[in-house]
């Protein structure tokens, strides 16, 4: 187990270096000169040159890369070109809402997907299975923004039931819960399809296994056989697959945040890119990529904990 963990950690290092290099290159190719930007429009050439020296921009590229790494380690991601707010501060403010949105989406869509998939597998080939499959194929084909726009139009606008712009408070308050409902329904809605599909396949696999036949032969009730013996074993591959689908969820989150003006990292990143705010864009991309390295590591290790066979 420890060996597996160390192996995985070591593999993450070159990936992290790669991401940092891409982040560094991002700042090299952009057309604006960071020194001129920091100095402001009124600065004299001397001041710009001084700032350039300060930032190490007159040094060789490799030294600059070292300086860049040192700055990152100190949590200095630069300052927004647009509003002069430190990138790290903005990121700190937006990560919470994004995680909140992802959590609120997963908390209802995963159980529903698991239930649908298990039902489909149990009554395989029957009408209800076909219905489950139809819902899941439709689910994986539905653009997130379409679902979001439908919910906004009917629930938010036509029926006036729920708010559809911005975040109204933290998740643990009533206002926060009401505010997150539509975005979470949107993002979770497109996640049900994949989860139901993966669960159905996994449960079908396990239902044919010998231990399930044994459980039936013992005279256990069907519900016990399905939930305790089939679904439980099917959960191992499903958990991994859900972990791998977190990327898909993030893609949905970026779009959902844009539609609902949700103050998260995705919306921050998109705004920074479309307004040419390079330091902000670089910071958000670095943090998102870093987050992925961590998530993948956790999923990997979780898999090993759940399924002892992997550790060998």
């Amino acid at each position, binding site marked *: 187990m420890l060996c597996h963990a160390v192996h995985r950690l070591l*593999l993450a290092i*070159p*990936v992290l270096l*790669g991401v940092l290099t*891409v982040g560094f*290159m*991002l700042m090299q*190719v*952009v057309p604006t000169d960071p020194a001129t930007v920091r100095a402001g429009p009124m600065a004299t050439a001397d001041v710009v040159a001084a700032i350039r020296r300060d930032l190490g921009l007159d040094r060789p590229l490799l030294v600059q890369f070292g300086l860049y790494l040192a700055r990152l380690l100190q949590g200095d991601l630069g300052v927004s070109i647009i509003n002069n707010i430190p990138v790290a501060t903005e990121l700190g403010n937006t990560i919470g809402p994004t995680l909140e949105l992802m959590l609120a989406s997963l908390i209802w869509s995963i159980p529903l997907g698991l239930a649908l998939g298990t039902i489909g597998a149990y009554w*395989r080939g029957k009408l209800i299975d076909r219905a489950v499959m139809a819902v899941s*194929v*439709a689910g*994986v*084909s*539905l*653009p*997130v*923004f*379409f679902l979001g*726009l439908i919910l*906004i*139009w009917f629930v938010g*606008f036509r029926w006036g039931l729920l708010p559809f712009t911005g975040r109204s408070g933290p998740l643990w308050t009533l206002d926060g819960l009401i505010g997150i409902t539509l975005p979470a329904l949107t993002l979770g809605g497109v996640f049900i399809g994949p989860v139901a599909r993966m669960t159905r*396949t996994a449960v*079908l696999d396990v239902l044919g296994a010998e231990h399930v036949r044994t459980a039936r032969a013992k005279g256990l009730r069907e519900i016990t056989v399905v939930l305790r013996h089939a679904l439980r074993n099917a959960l191992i591959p499903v958990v991994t697959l859900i972990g791998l689908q*977190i*990327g*898909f969820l*993030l*893609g949905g989150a*970026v*779009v959902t945040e*844009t*539609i609902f003006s949700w103050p998260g990292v995705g919306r921050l*990143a*998109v705004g*920074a*890119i*479309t307004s040419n705010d*390079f330091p902000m*864009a*670089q910071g*958000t*991309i670095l943090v*998102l*990529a870093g987050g*992925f*390295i961590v998530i*993948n590591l956790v999923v990997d290790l979780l898999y090993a904990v759940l399924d002892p066979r992997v550790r060998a």
Partner: protein
Amino acid sequence: MNRLLRDPLALIGLALVLAAILAAIFAPVLTSADPYDNDLASAMQPPGPDHMLGADDQGRDMIVRLLYGLRLTLLMGAAAVGIGGGIGTTLGLVAAFYRRLDTLIMRIMDVLLSFPAILFGLAIAAIFGPGTTAVILALSVATIPLAARIVRATATVEMQRDYIEAARAVGMGDNRLILRHLLPNCLSALFVWATLRFGQVILLGSALSFIGLGAQPPTAELGAMAAQGRTFLFFAPHIAVVPSIAIFLVVLAFNVLGDALRDALDPRLRV
């Protein structure tokens, strides 16, 4: 193939896919109107006798916009699947054929695979600026590792077969062996994968356009059209709904067809 033709769902999927492709190719023939010609008198007109699917905020006919939008969207999808699939296939074949390179290539693929397509979209749009090219590039990069995995898995199995040994015994060169024997035997798996991937790529590409990183308005592209309609959602919902439904139907058709193809071509996966 017979099995496929007896499945009504697969036939509907196939018909829709063909209809979309033909409509995209023959858009200039099907309509003489220009998708950028505006007519402010009929701006935001709901579906009716003048404009069957309504007109957008500039009074441009939605059907004309839809045809040209479909054209660009499918073209973007084809470019991404073609470029990413081509590079991925090459890497997958090399990994399966030259075992020494296998670990190196597949490790790099694993790394690419660990980042979601949207992240490539954000990074590439940040470097090159938002646009159709950025979307194609991002989706190609995201597609490479998927193609490499499928092809490597299929080719590794094929490498165990007798015909490879036989071809080697008669002194066939590596390149010829890969192109004439190994690749053709991977094509059916590749075809199924490409059909399914096409649907995903269209979904991702239109999402990138929708959030403003892809095709820019007033370009007729389905995702960009939906984004443009979002502004007028409460006055003229059809501007956003028409392109959104088009994306949904096209992706659904590719997914249904891809699933049916997989069931028909790969009996092991039949349930």
